[in-house]
């Protein structure tokens, strides 16, 4: 089996994997980073969103071997010890999650929006989120959380 190496949440990791191993499988099954979820099999739901070299990507749609040498960030790497990242804190403060299953992907996606658009409008947030499905919140409080999180990150 081939070996794949990358940096995940700042740590260098390396493993032998079957060539068909998806990035999400590598994160969950090899590294035990189970915060990244799988909610569909058609690359639609966005529960698996992580950052690859700083940009959001659906980890169910990339082979682990495609990100050889890349810098990968997952939900587990966001908080600073016990202190939540401002975007995580905004979700907590604004009840932007219910069952929590889609949440890691939504938060990682939201951070990529703010990276390219520091002060998004409500409409821009709603349109950006077209790659993330949530069945619990009706998106109302997710949108509110992202707007608040963006503001806090400017702050």
């Amino acid at each position: 089996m081939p070996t794949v190496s990358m940096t995940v949440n700042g740590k260098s990791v390396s493993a032998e994997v079957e060539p068909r191993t998806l990035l999400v499988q590598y994160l969950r099954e090899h590294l035990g980073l189970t915060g990244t979820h799988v909610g569909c099999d058609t690359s639609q739901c966005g529960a698996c969103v992580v950052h690859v070299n700083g940009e959001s990507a659906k980890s169910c749609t990339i082979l682990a071997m495609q990100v050889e040498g890349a810098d990968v960030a997952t939900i587990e790497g966001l908080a600073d010890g016990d202190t939540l990242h401002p975007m995580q804190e905004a979700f907590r403060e604004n009840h932007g999650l219910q069952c929590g299953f889609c949440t890691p992907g939504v938060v990682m996606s939201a951070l990529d929006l703010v990276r390219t658009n520091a002060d998004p409008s409500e409409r821009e947030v709603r349109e950006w989120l077209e790659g993330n499905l949530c069945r619990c919140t009706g998106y109302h409080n997710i949108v509110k959380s992202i707007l608040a999180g963006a503001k806090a990150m400017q702050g």
Partner: protein
Amino acid sequence: MSETGIGAAVRRVEDKRFLTGRGKYIDDIDQRGQLYAWMLRSPHAHARINGVDTATASQAPGVVAIFTGADMAADEVGGIPCAWQIHNKDGSPMHEPPHPPLAVDKVRHVGDQVAVVIAETKAQARDAAELIAVDYDVLPAAIDMDLALADNASLVHDDVPNNLCFDWEIGDKDATEAAFAKADHVVSIDIVNNRLIPNAMEPRAAIAQYEPSNGNYTLHTTTQNPHVIRLLMGAFVLQIPEHKLRIIAPDVGGGFGSKIFHYAEEAILTWASAKVPQPIKWTAERSESFITDAHGRDHETHAELAMDKGGNFLGLRVSTKANIGAYLSTFGAAVPTYLHGTLMAGVYTTPAIYCEVKTVFTNTVPVDAYRGAGRPECTYLLERLVTKAAREIGMDPVEIRQKNMIQPDQFPYQTPVALEYDVGNYPASLDTALQASDYAGFEKRRAESESNDKRRGIGISTYIEACGIAPSAVAGALGARAGLYESAQVRVHPTGSVTVYTGSHSHGQGHETTFAQLVSESFGIPIEQVEIKHGDTGEVQFGMGTYGSRSIAVGGPAILKACNKIIDKATKIVAHILEASESDIEFKDGKFTVSGTDREMAFAEVSLAAYVPHNYPIEELEPGLDENAFYDPLNFSYPAGCHICEVEIDPETGDVDITNFTAVDDVGRVINPMIVEGQVHGGLAQGIGQALLEGCVYDDSGQLLTGSYMDYTMPRADNLPNLNVGTQSVLGASNPLEVKGVGEVGAIGSPPAVINAILDALAPLGVDDISMPATSAKVWQAIQNA
């Protein structure tokens, strides 16, 4: 109100673990020596199985075992049971054909399980499944309900004539006929309540484990009610006694009803885990969820409303066909009957009602409870019909509702369809919603839209529902095979912190916060001192789980009852230690005081005394501070409210833009307003999704055409508006917490508000009907056809 007590918008206790990726959903859990299962599923809607050849597959790399229906039948494994028995009009019981976990002689829907492959990796199990050769004789499929009921229809179950599961009725047929005979106006409607796919974001999953040294089974499974699964699977399917079967449902990623039911995969895995014997894990792929999670709704209804000259309702006649799918799922029989027909009075004083329901087997996935379960179907037909009636007799849709509403002084109100509403104020909800939506300013907004070549409409829905699915005696009389109480254990530790074990289950509702607020309020202690445990039959004494908006209405009072038992016992301990009479002890803000003195004991001092009983009334009281309670209410609770939707439609494209959605809901006492709003938001999204986007489609051969997120339109952030929600509550009268339940109101009230708004917008163009989902294409076509 304390900072973390009843009424406070406490931020959720559970959020930190979900936000940091430390939630523990089933697929996040692994067991040592774990194997993986892959289900081989039928590609046909209806076929006879002549044989299943597993010889080649068994030799594939990594394969440990392959089992078929014949193997389970040889072990005399039972069928998947239905928890509710409905009777026909003539008193005979419904048909209950067998539902083997793995198909034996026939497959009855696309996705039906034919074999399970167990291998060292999931990929190996899946690869091997492709090597199994199944010899099918494909049979014609029964899909459309009318065709399925016809005399020449293909039979889903050979011994169920006309595929008719049961033919049920409720209400007074003669009185209703008499009401129609004297009516001045009769308005009728034919509507379809579209079939939906629940789509909790976490696919179902399970891990079964058998311990040969003691015969104990443990099943981790994505369920809303672990004790119910233990009871159904243990007693009816696998004959495993309850002390040998532990069910664990840790973090569960949404349910909406679809994770109530006992599913075949749970029994297959548990049974197989003893054969292997190693832990076995199965996680559904989303494509499997589409063809195996129980679907919702799927009713076709003809309804008629009789009125006098003044628009007063005289009678209602409803005839529904309900698709129940290929097998009876756990609550499948209850949904179109006692959760549907019993709500036909709505919020109105209609004196005579008759409702009949034919439930039909088809070669589709079983249909069962989905958020609202029966009540959205009822509300949709009533609120469409009432709005149509207003239009036909030239009355304002607000006025016809006001004229026929049950008034606040009429409670308790006995409806003609079994239920007795306890308390409510429907005109107040309507008034508040009219103001919040600026109903009075609508015509001005309509004129503005028209000046931009758009069509604007406004739609109202005034709904009621029955929640807190319990009263065991009532439920029993209606056919439930189990009681529907809830239980709680409140364990106060020696230093005064508290662990609560609840039989309710949280899969997004925030029980770890709301329930802790009840305890914080009861004991006057901060919420950090309280931990809520749920979801493990090995920890929690018993429980009936979470569905039908029952957690706060039934599970909440059980916690309160146990807390009160704790306070009673603590009072006795304090009276002994402070040498006072029990009747002189007061408990407030976490302190016991002897009234009129400065003698007091803090809550934690009493708990310590209970566990270190050096100075203790040992002859009268046992040590310890740990109480159990079971709570069974006397009646359902009845949330109600008014939803008003305003839309602007582009007639060139058929695009429907919801410009405002107002929901005013009466949910009784609000424990955590932030969580209550969130629950309403989520329900509204599912209701608006049903009205505008979502629809499950089978072709005539029984293939699911909407089997992925590429084809089944889930609401996304840019499909939905900001939601203007508020509560206007009359405190509940059916339980000591005075709560009513909030999980389903959004999904129940909203679909008719949306469709009524669309029809209001399009009425000037001559459009008088449109079916859900009212997609742009459908709206555009309706405009072209008008």
